[in-house]
């Protein structure tokens, strides 16, 4: 699971009012190379919830992202784009779990695939 995915997912358990962001429990993190496409990064930038993104990157051991005052003008900097690209698409949670911030329910991540399916009594 890439951090782009993490930034999009939330816990949708019945009764949970704010299931985002999910806390990451990392057991195995790998890096997988992805070709950089600056147009894609520029498009997706405005869709990212920045604070949870920075936190998630830190949890997985990457702390080179600016924490505050991120303006779209940063996208003109190649250095920023490279870091953004790396954090967003190349860090990959292979084994671990995503934890619902309200209920503590764990969504397991095995072989890089988050299992977001709810149990019968959570629907």
């Amino acid at each position, binding site marked *: *699971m*890439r951090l*782009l*995915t993490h930034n*999009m*997912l*939330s*816990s*949708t358990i019945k009764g949970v009012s*704010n*299931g*985002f*962001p999910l806390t990451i429990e990392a057991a195995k993190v790998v890096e*997988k190379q*992805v*070709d950089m*496409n600056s*147009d*894609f990064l520029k*498009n*997706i930038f405005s*869709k990212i*919830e920045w604070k949870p993104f920075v936190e998630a990157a830190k949890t997985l051991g990457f702390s080179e992202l600016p924490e505050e005052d991120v303006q779209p003008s940063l996208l003109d900097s190649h250095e920023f784009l490279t870091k953004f690209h790396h954090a967003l*698409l190349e860090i990959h949670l292979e084994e671990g779990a995503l934890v619902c911030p309200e209920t503590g329910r764990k969504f397991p991540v*095995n*072989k*890089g*695939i*988050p*299992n*977001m*399916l*709810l*149990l*019968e*009594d959570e*629907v």
Partner: protein
Amino acid sequence: MWYMCVFFHRLLDYRKPEVEALAQLFGAFADDNNGDSHSVQWKLPDNFHPDNPFHFVNIPSEDIARDIAKRSILVKGMYEIWGEGTSYEQLEEAVNAYPEERKLPYLTSENTFKINIDSFGKTFTTQEQKELLKRLAFIPFKGRVNLRNPDHNFWFIEIDKYEANNGLPPIVEKRIFFGREVGAADRKLLPTYQLKSRVYIGPTAMDAEMAFLMANQGLAAPGKLVYDPFVGTGSVLVAAAHFGALTMGADIDIRVVRDGRGPDRNVWSNFKQYGLQEPISLLRADNNLPPWRAGLKEVFDAIICDPPYGVRAGGRKSGGRKLLKGVVGPYTVPDDKREGHIPSTAAYSLVECVHDLLDLAAKMLVMGGRLVYFYPVLREEDSPDPTFPEHPCFKLVAVSEQILSFRYSRVLLTMVKVATYTEEIAESARVMHLDFKANHLKWLEEGNLHSAVFAPNKEGENVDLRFSKDSKPKYRGKYV
């Protein structure tokens, strides 16, 4: 400028929409306002049937025409026609009258060339081909012939008149064309990606040709994000990734997305096999209860999928036992069994599935983004023209039918997002979602395609009559 667009004679309903989608992708429409009110102009040669492979299409530039032809799956070639006529004399006259400055640059001594002969519904012997080539002696070719790798390909197309034959549409009058090739499709893609040599496939894996057509309808390209909510073995995303798009997929069946058939035989390995960028994300999720965070919208450039409509594979959604038994309280999973518990699922009716898909797409697609999906249509009885799902955020831009059996066909629908997802639309979708939940069995019966497709023949009905009824007036080609 008008070009002759020659198609491969298959998947007839898919041919023009593919060219139109690619025209959009390569910028044939200058003032791009969300794919709205754009259309490509088409023209038929005199007296030709619309299903024949020869069409004229108006494309703003040669570069765009070349790009369209190269990327397409069903375009055999785009030609700049130098002349046409009903006899060789007329052809010669027309070619001589064609502006010199459009011809001479391709006839110089530095250029190598090849003349190809094409027809439709007939073949030429070598002797006949030689005769035909001699008739072109009036064109002042200065360059050398190169049959393997010429700088310029020319096409000499002769179509004889013939009556309707074996379902082929009739051609009323003999017609001859001569033109220069601007671009042609790369059909080598298809053997490379054919399913029989793919490592991991499932019973409903999409065949390579159709998957590429779907990716073209979805305008898959580098820098774009394509999502498939029913990813299965990833056959649709493989095509999108081939065109450089980043991909994401979800499926409710974890065995398919996570495990596959071993470490080197799963969805990831299908991408590795072709040296493609693997999906950015694969996850297990239910299309009925998508796991996206509340504020998230307009992230995908295209949603391309083949929803499970219950004929070859039935859809499933969360909430099984409760819905099936009509119990008021849900089944509560005991605490000691929560880990590793496999939640039961319930059948997912086509109506609800399509409703969820449109709602998801309306919310998650960028403006101008495309939803491309298959929709089943029953061909039984004297049913009127089918109606397709509608949504206030979408405009339907292409409808392509592929007949699968006597009883049903599938239709590839391409919808473009033209309006933003508002609070009111979200609210009415929520109400509908609850209605589906409350009246689960009723909806399930209404959308039961499986029994309609596989029901036995009605008693007393003549089987021969059934066959004759099948041959609908519109000819659609023998390939399905």
